């Protein structure tokens, strides 16, 4: 049995003037025990998919199942077996850490003691603060508490909607380590994130943009499908370098990537490029062939950005 199955799911929201298509004919499935990531920016449709799967929203079209249960007909059965952590850390700010956990344990008909081993790993870090109000916790701690609350009833599937948004790198790293340990215990995990660098931590990922899935595969396969050479280019004046590279006739795409610019070419004539850059005054330009990352792949897959900006902006 598949842990999650979606078939041709469509979800639209009516607004005053038009209808917004949040999820546009999406189909995919997740195996049991898999750590599956939905990767995409805000508005890609990640939250809508999660809400459809957790029985909170009805899709306009299509069918979805969670562990064989239909999300419409069998919503009660699904609500018993899933753990859900919504995008905002939904905790009661005026209750203490312990009270929150106790509350969520009770509404799921269980107790902290019963499933303590499941959350022990995470909750141990919170225990020194268990009499502190949730509202007074830092972002990382709230995230850990929210995860504990979602886990306390020993769900078979965990839906985590952007659990690392707004959380600092240390907590993010710790969070992914926790997910790995949960996965090792056999829990299927669906996680969404706007951070491309988290994609490689999943078993399989779906890259999403504007309500559509651009590709689904393992991170390794997606990178392999990049299908062209990627170069990093660095020089002393990165701003002029960017504009010069974009003006280079053989440039297919060029994006700033932190310290370097990432470049793909339609025709690989490196000598010509070096010459070109030298003429433009980039004396110590360093050009290196590099492995693409998920973010490179994502940008390549985005056929048309949703913005009216031309790729090369007229500065």
């Amino acid at each position, binding site marked *: 049995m598949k842990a999650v199955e979606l078939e041709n799911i469509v979800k639209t929201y009516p607004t005053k003037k038009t209808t917004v298509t949040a999820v546009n004919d999406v189909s995919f499935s997740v195996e049991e025990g898999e750590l599956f990531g939905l990767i995409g920016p805000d508005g*890609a449709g990640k939250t809508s998919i999660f809400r459809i799967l957790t029985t909170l929203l009805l899709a306009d079209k299509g069918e979805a199942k969670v562990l064989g249960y239909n999300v419409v007909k069998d919503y009660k059965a699904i609500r018993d077996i899933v753990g859900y952590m919504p995008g905002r850390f939904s905790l009661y700010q005026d209750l203490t850490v312990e009270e929150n956990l106790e509350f969520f344990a009770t509404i799921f008909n269980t107790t902290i003691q019963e499933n303590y081993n499941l959350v022990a790993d995470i909750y141990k870090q919170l225990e020194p603060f268990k009499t502190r109000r949730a509202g007074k916790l830092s972002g990382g701690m709230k995230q850990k508490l929210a995860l504990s609350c979602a886990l306390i009833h020993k769900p078979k599937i965990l839906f985590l909607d952007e659990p690392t948004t707004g959380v600092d*790198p*240390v907590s993010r790293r710790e969070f992914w380590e926790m997910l790995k340990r949960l996965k090792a215990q056999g829990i299927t995990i669906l996680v969404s994130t706007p951070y491309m660098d988290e994609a490689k931590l999943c078993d399989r990922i779906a890259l999403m943009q504007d309500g559509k899935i651009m590709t689904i595969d393992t991170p390794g396969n997606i990178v392999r499908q990049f299908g062209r050479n990627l170069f990093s280019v660095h020089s002393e004046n990165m701003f002029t370098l960017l504009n010069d590279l974009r003006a280079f006739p053989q440039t297919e795409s060029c994006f700033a990537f932190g310290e370097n610019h990432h470049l793909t070419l339609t025709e690989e004539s490196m000598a010509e490029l070096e010459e070109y850059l030298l003429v433009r005054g980039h004396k110590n330009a360093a050009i290196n062939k590099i492995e693409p990352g998920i973010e490179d792949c994502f940008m390549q897959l985005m056929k048309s*950005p949703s913005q009216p900006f031309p790729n090369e902006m007229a*500065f």
Partner: protein
Amino acid sequence: MNREVVIKTDKLTKKFGDFIAASEITFEVFKGEIFGFLGANGAGKTTAMKMLIGISKPSYGKAQIAGFDVYKQTEQIKKNIGYMSQKFSLYEDLTIKENINLFGGIYGLSGKQIETKSNELIIKLNLYKEADKLVGSLPLGWKQKLAFSIAILHEPKIVFLDEPTGGVDPITRRQFWDMIYEAAHNGITVFVTTHYMDEAEYCDRVSIMVDGVIKALDSPAELKKQFNAISMDDVFLRLARGAQRGD
């Protein structure tokens, strides 16, 4: 590179009772530099930035922003800086043009200046069709770019960006950074606070704050070398793992 100093702090400190939110912060930022101000939640970034933009009085220490003193000349500081935050930047229930007029007016531009600037901006951002639409109806990426353009409408010496690029797609994010590069190229100093470490890699230099203290300050490349790390994320993890406060 032009080495004119536009931000200079010396042992800048803010205490709340016994709690030292920012402790003896000392650094310089140069004209046209993109300076990343990094730190975990609760590390003291926001406190430090509030002192720099003149809305919070330091407990002690010195600081000059665009040549103005943070104790006595806060009004001049405010005129010479731009500010954009992720949480608040534009009025969603006003149109693009109305927002431009409003912020132009707030920063004391004349009606004529506002009109010229407004037209330039609309041409540059390719927003002819949207100029009379409510900002609230725009996609997040456009809002960010528009907010940044408006933050530098009055040609400030320094623009402060508070966690500017959350949640947009990678291409839009690149376009945003293109704009930041351009502004820096034109001599505007860009001061970015963020806890997204990949964002830090775009900066000329970054400082990393842990528990109210600046623990490291250098170019991303140097920091990576110094900490023997492959990314800024690693650098940050190494510095912040020992943090007592916050996360």
